[in-house]
């Protein structure tokens, strides 16, 4: 039990094997009991994938677009409050911080179904901005938390120091604080992206099908009897966060230019 190999083997069974089973279904629509290895392979799901290419690309593009927008929006919304929470104390702060956690924790159905009505009245339902807004409202606590931690991780004197050296507010914000905050922002942004990208219900409710979304494309297949297409689309889904992880890492390296600051 203490053997590293054994532990790793157990991890592989637990975490990689399910993906292999998905790959099996992707390649063999007729895979059924009691075959452990699919008996007949078929390219049908791949053909469907190719035939639906533009549609899948559109859905994927839509999902990436609104998820990235939610990341950017949540970053902008949380910047000033995170600094406030990290740098100052005031009465009611603890209560406020707790309240601002709530959107990520309470059932999202409650606020979204209530807000749906207002969104329709405001003309935000079935629009990309509406979807971005509702996803941001659902996922910003992760960004707020990350940025608060980020501000807490470096001294407020950096800004003071830069100001003392003659820098204006914009230079202080962009050249000094932003690079220091970048690792935290990337960490928070990754979570926000992942949450937004995976979300089905809110996009379905507020997007009303008018906003192309990969989860919206995937969902009917997952609930249908077509396991082959569902599997292949799930595997495709996974590729996005994994690519994103490497991309963020590379960008962060570029942005903080080799500095070995890690979140």
């Amino acid at each position, binding site marked *: 039990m203490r053997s590293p190999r054994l532990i790793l083997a157990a991890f592989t069974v637990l975490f990689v094997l399910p993906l292999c089973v998905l790959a099996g279904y992707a390649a063999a629509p007729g895979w059924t009991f009691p075959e452990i290895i699919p008996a007949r392979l078929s390219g049908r799901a791949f053909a469907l994938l190719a035939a639906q290419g533009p549609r899948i690309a559109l859905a994927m593009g839509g999902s990436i677009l609104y998820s990235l927008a939610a990341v950017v929006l949540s970053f902008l919304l949380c910047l000033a409050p995170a600094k406030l929470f990290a740098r100052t104390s005031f009465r009611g702060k603890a209560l406020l911080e707790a309240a601002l956690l709530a959107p990520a924790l309470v059932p999202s159905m409650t606020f979204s179904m209530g807000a749906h009505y207002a969104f329709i009245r405001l003309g935000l339902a079935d629009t990309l901005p509406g979807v971005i807004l509702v996803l941001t409202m659902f996922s910003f606590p992760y960004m707020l938390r990350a940025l608060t931690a980020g501000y807490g991780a470096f001294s407020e*004197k950096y800004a003071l*120091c830069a100001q*003392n050296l003659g820098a204006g507010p914009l230079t202080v914000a962009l050249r*000094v604080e932003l690079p220091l905050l*970048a690792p935290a922002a990337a960490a928070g942004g990754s979570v926000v992206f992942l949450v937004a990208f995976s979300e089905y219900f809110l996009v379905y409710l507020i997007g009303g099908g008018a906003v192309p979304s990969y989860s919206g494309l995937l969902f009917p297949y997952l609930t249908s009897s077509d396991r082959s297409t569902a599997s292949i689309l799930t595997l495709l889904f996974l590729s996005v966060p994994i690519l994103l992880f490497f991309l963020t890492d590379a960008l962060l390296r570029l942005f903080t*230019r080799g*500095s070995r600051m890690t979140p």
Partner: protein
Amino acid sequence: MFFACRDITKSYGNKPVLKGVSLTVQAGELVSVIGPSGAGKTTLLNILAGLDRPDSGELRFAVPPSKKRPVIMVFQDYLLFPSMTVFENAAFGLRARNMKKDEIRRRVCDALDYFQIADKANAYPDELSGGQKQRLAIARAMAPGPSLLLLDEPFANLDPNLKQDAAAFIKRAQREFGVTTVAVTHDLAEAFVMSGRIAIMLDGALAVTGTPEEIHKNPGGLEAARFLGPVNRIPASLALAPGPGQGFTSGGALYLRPQDLGLRKDPQGEALVQGRAFTGRYYIYEVALADGPLTVHSLQNGIVPGDRVRLFIRESAPAAPPTPIKETA
């Protein structure tokens, strides 16, 4: 006069931090404010830097600081920007002044050369040693040509064996550039090496100001004296042989530096040695007197627990206290 502050007070909440500080600094001087932590040194520095405002009192500059002739502070932990190279850090203040690229390049290269970090120009701060970081921080502060340089605890983040070198280096650089400098530190030895003048700050006020020699000779008060090193307090009940050197007295008690107090083995001596410890520079003896225990700091060696000794005043002791001593706690 370069600047003068008079009767500066500052409180945070209900806690007074500065209780009327007055200090005059001449152009080109290097003045160190020393004192224990919590004495208000950094607050004074922040006020000088314009990062904080005094509650009352007056701060006057002969030539008011401007963007061209700024007051620049080197923070205690240097605050080098981690995402910028050494060169970019040093150039930061110049870029903020929209200086021409060539000019920046020339001035930064000169500065890095002088501060012996030119070979690290493209490195990032986390690749520098402690001493290099400090030199970069000073180089960065010097680059825009400040009229007043403020050093906050310049030795706090250095290895003990580097502190003396750093002090000498700062002294040389300050002379070379001729920039008026105020440092606050609790590192006595380094402040003595580095500074033209020293002010001792205790509990929100300056206790004494003077050259290192003057201060050493005449700390101006018991607490300041204690801050500069251990002081023996000999109760009045214990009459020591008065001599040319009398130590200074206050309320009947007598105060002596370790080097001024001797112990002599004497079976009739008034004190029984019960414990002994060596600090590396002097001994600490626990002795029992007729009316209670006493801790004695002395250079005297050769005494062991169990010996009965007599205390005496060495001839090196100063003749008289320079100013009346306020005895507290």
